């Protein structure tokens, strides 16, 4: 078995253990609710019999581990139960709302890497100089406000005062939405060959994605900088300098790649944070993603929907982490090739 395959198998099995842990944790949290979820779901006008029927249906009268057993049984059939809020299967709800959120997060992730890492490289290369200080302050500002603050500020600046971008929504109202294939509007509009729709969707996503990405950009820049500055102290950088390679080449080639290895793990975690922060940005820009659904189901103590939503988000995060691990393995030959035995 090649080392990469072994790594993948190991990571996958750990992720599954963690996911089981997440399901148990969130299941426990969802079941310690004070008050009767059935009563809350049915409202004050329902009769006692109706409430009792729903409790029976949701197995609420059984001990919690039995309830968890039912949950696992249903889950293995791809059934996350029915939402008490929408009266639809939770899987249907998630399939409807998740793509918009993922689309937002992916675009924000591209911004985070595309802006954050080059800023970090520049900062490290000019460490101690003016450019470094400016980048450090700006990236610190980036991480110093929650996404909703950036969302509000960007909206004020670039949608109201300078009306460059639309205020809300995913696509212009005057356009017909392209047929849903992947759920990702940017992809679907391209698949449909509908260029105006694509441009409108792109136009709509820039501001929320940037608001979501700002703290990630700052974090990525800071991380890249600090890991690269550490790498600059390594003997192999001094050796590269002793060969007179240009500073830019030393930064981009000799210092960047080794320092990316520790940065990538944290960037993966930041991606997770963005999945959560997307809730904040979606609320500001009326983005039709998982946010409103998630907040509503939490406020209504909609057990199945809460568990389902959190599980899907965690699974997405774990998948991202596995991808990050594979990227690290690709960059780091020590992982890619089995290490020599040590005495």
């Amino acid at each position: 078995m090649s080392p990469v395959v072994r790594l993948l198998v190991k990571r996958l099995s750990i992720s599954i253990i963690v996911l089981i842990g997440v399901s148990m944790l969130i299941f426990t949290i969802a079941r310690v609710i004070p008050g009767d979820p059935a009563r809350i779901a049915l409202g004050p006008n329902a009769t006692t019999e109706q409430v009792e029927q729903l409790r029976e249906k949701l197995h609420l009268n059984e001990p919690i581990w039995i309830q968890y057993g039912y949950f696992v049984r249903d889950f293995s059939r791809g059934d996350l139960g029915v939402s008490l809020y929408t009266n639809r299967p939770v899987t249907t709800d998630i399939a409807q709302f998740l793509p918009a959120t993922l689309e937002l997060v992916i675009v924000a992730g591209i911004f985070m890497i595309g802006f954050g890492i080059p800023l970090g490289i520049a900062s490290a290369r000019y460490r101690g100089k003016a450019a470094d200080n400016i980048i450090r302050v700006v990236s610190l500002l980036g991480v110093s406000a929650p996404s909703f603050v950036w969302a509000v500020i960007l909206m004020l600046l670039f949608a109201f005062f300078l009306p460059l971008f639309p205020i809300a929504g995913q696509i212009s109202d005057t356009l017909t939405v392209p047929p849903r294939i992947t759920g990702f509007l940017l992809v679907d509009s391209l698949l449909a060959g509908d260029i105006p729709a694509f441009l409108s969707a792109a136009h709509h996503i820039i501001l929320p994605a940037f608001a979501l990405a700002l703290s990630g950009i700052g974090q990525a820049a800071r991380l890249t900088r600090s890991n690269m500055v550490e790498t600059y102290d390594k003997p192999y950088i001094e050796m590269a300098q002793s060969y007179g390679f240009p500073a830019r080449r030393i930064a981009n080639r000799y210092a960047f790649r080794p320092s990316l290895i520790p940065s990538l793990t944290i960037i993966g975690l930041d991606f997770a944070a963005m999945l959560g922060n997307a809730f904040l940005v979606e609320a500001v820009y009326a983005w039709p993603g998982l946010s409103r659904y998630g907040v509503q189901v939490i406020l209504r103590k909609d057990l199945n929907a809460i568990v389902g939503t959190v599980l899907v988000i965690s699974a997405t995060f774990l998948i991202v982490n596995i991808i990050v691990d594979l990227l690290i393995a690709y960059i780091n030959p020590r992982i890619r090739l089995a290490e020599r035995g040590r005495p």
Partner: protein
Amino acid sequence: MRRTLSILLSNPLSVIGLILVGTVVFSAVFADLIAPFPSHRGAVVDFTNFNQPPHWPNIFGTDLVGRDVFSRILYAYRISLLLGVVVLAIAVPIGVTVGLAAGYLGGWAEFILMRLTDVFLSIPPLVLAMSVMGVLEPTLTNGMLAVTTMWWPWYARLVYNVTRSEAQEGYVLAAEIIGASRLHIMFREILPNCVPSIVTKMTLDLGFVILIASSLSFLGLGVQAPTPDLGSMVAEGGNYLPDSWWLTVFPSLAILIAVFGFNLLGDALRQVLGSDQ
């Protein structure tokens, strides 16, 4: 200590951080004395002076029921800082103990504790806090509980990493050879060497707790009205953009300034204490 301070004061950014943090802490502690309208922290209604842009004496304007935005920001700082201190006071000891045990003992303890930590870390922080907050009544205590739930794993991970590398150091081996107990080695030998990293992170985190708590209340899952809260102020004001801009802009800037201050200070400490992770 004196060396630490003299290095801190020699860097303009750290000085700015100190000033910002000092200002925030001062205004939270002495809100009663500074706030022009102390009673506006509660459910006061003044329909003769509502939704007014900044003017004297309401320098940050008034909200939809006529309360002074500036006064409310001061009291919001007080609650945010209290929340931050309490959360860290609970989360740090838990996280540190878990991290030390997992990092030093290894084996099954490490596997179980770190997988447990992974479980918490693989739910986005905000989503975890939201779920806890959602099932509980939205009170300040429960807010603290929700944020603590998501906070300790970060300390567990930090201390675990530091412990793992410190455990390779000769002084740990030396203590083992002498026959010192595991508790001694964990808490008296290794822990002091984790302190710089922990202190740095705590400084940064006082800012980030404010950030997360405001995010929760922004979504309506935090401290409830009429208690002043920066997140809910932004959320309320957001509906009246761009005309009543002061309702959102000032609380937003208040969050930014507080978190930025703690970040500057934490960064400076990181450099001085040499705890770059």
